């Protein structure tokens, strides 16, 4: 059937034309995208100046416990004995009994340096990112305790579910070569 053969070649020709156009188009698009600037990756990070320590980081992250941890800028800390990030606002007594401490998991730990100063460190395996210590430190202290996404834990989801839930718009994409937004002049890359 000559008619049938002609029909087939016509469709083949059409397909080749569309295929060629699509190849050229996709190639051009790829060229445009790769030529538009740095090809670096992005990671998610919290801007500590925008963060309002609402505590959603602890619950919204797809990881459990969250990849958000409290970070301590040691150079900014006042090394207070009465740390408002460490103690509950209304104490039963000035001792380190669990009922007096803000941190629900005991992740914020302190050690004596010299009278009357204490050093505060975070055990990241215990920290769940609830930001209670950061809130206390921000409200009454120096703000040296703040929340950061820890990249050894973060899965770097294409859409960070914390970013979608953050009321302050503090979670943003940052270039992967400077993945932290640290307080206290410590933001310079290593």
């Amino acid at each position: 059937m000559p008619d049938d053969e002609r029909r087939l070649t016509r469709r083949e020709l059409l397909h080749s034309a569309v295929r060629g156009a699509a190849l050229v188009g996709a190639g051009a698009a790829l060229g445009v995208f790769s030529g538009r600037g740095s090809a670096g990756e992005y990671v998610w990070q919290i801007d500590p100046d925008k963060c309002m320590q609402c505590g959603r980081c602890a619950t919204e992250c797809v990881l459990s416990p969250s990849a958000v941890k409290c970070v301590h800028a040691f150079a900014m800390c006042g090394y207070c004995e009465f740390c408002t990030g460490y103690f509950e606002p209304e104490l039963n007594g000035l001792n380190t009994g669990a009922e007096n401490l803000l941190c629900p998991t005991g992740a914020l730990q302190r050690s004596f340096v010299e009278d009357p100063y204490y050093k505060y460190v975070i055990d990241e395996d215990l920290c769940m990112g609830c930001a209670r210590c950061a809130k206390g430190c921000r409200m009454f202290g120096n703000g040296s305790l703040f929340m950061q996404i820890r990249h050894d834990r973060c899965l770097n989801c294409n859409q960070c579910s914390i970013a979608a839930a953050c009321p302050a718009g503090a979670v943003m994409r940052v270039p992967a070569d400077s993945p932290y937004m640290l307080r206290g002049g410590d933001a310079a890359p290593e």
Partner: protein
Amino acid sequence: MQRLNKTCCAGLVAVLAMLYALPAESLERFPPPDFESGFVFPEVTKPGPRPQLLEYLDVSVLIGALSLAAYLGIRKRSRTGLAVLGVFSLAYFGLWRRGCICPVGAIQNVALSLSDGGYVLPLSVAAFFFLPLFFALLFGRVFCSSVCPLGAIQDVVVLKPLRLPMWLEHSLGVLPYLYLGTAVVVTMATGRFMICRLDPYVGFFRLSGRLAMLITGGILLVAGVFVGRIYCRFICPYGAILRIFSIVSKWHVRIGPRDCVACTLCEDACPYNAILKPSGESAPGGIAGRALLARLIILLPLLMLAGYIHGKRLGPVLSKMHPRVRLAEQLWVEEERNARVRSDQTLAFIEQGGVPKELFGEALLLKSKNESWGRLLGLWAGAVTGLKLISLSLRRRREGYTPDRAKCVSCGRCFSSCPQHRAERRGLLPVERSVPDGS
């Protein structure tokens, strides 16, 4: 001692009350002490993200898997090979890489880089988006067959596939195109990635996730035992692009290795309704058929126009999804009611020194922009519906059984149903080595 502690506490409370009066911005209330014991500040640890090199490893694995899938499907004709490759992809891209980045989600990154000047598409994301498209133009949907982790997790649970009636298959088959348009418009209008938020299977890859996500995924997986690849066929927006590209692909998997003799044995082999029967007596053409086609072609612009007109109503829906518009509406309500208790959103806005008037102006502008986005989406929906109707009314003459290139995911389940394939495998026929192109 007890009394001393009480005094201490009272003193602490007094100090706190005093400090509370200070504005929140004044940090460094307590300057770091001059230590006498020679204490040095510890370093703040900064564990880095996944090295860039590994991202390129992912791209290499993707290229390797795509090439292997094309080889196994078209040249080697090995269903077993494709199944093994699928399990590998499920393990690597799914369980090991936790499903991110994937080409389905990369649609949104591409859309965002078009709408947001501050976002430059990373090279590895561009590779993940474009490579399967190139392969689809050359070899059909080999990405779907055994490289996509979402496809692989569904492919392993297809145990008792039922045949869906064609009217349902065709109606649901429109959804991926609508989802594609919606996802692109939502990303460009609001910056939100709805495909990632609604991905039903990624929770299994991460072994955690929101309950709703895990339940949806579980239901879809159980349903997937009876209706093969529900997500791929009726939801996947990336599949929508791949379908178009697969129709015009240079090469494509075939049911049998040689010319079809129309023995009908493969008729029920496809769990995805993707095998086209020979056209037989229901020949194309005819006056009635042409008249219908002509009417549908006239209908297409009308549908698009209707979509354009009514698409305006999608504007408010998009605005509801936009974080800035939501913030503005929340703030508006609180200002109107003189609310004493503020929501976290508005508190943060005020704390960051935002000016309500500017925000309201911005929101109004966004709302009118979103109406245009809605019109665009309506236009797209009209076009999809019209083109689907046209494609349904096109009849083509087919001699034998062929895979429906749009729907076929190149999984290779039909291979063994072809007697010529089985004869070759048992050495009863010489192995056909020429890779046929065309249909």
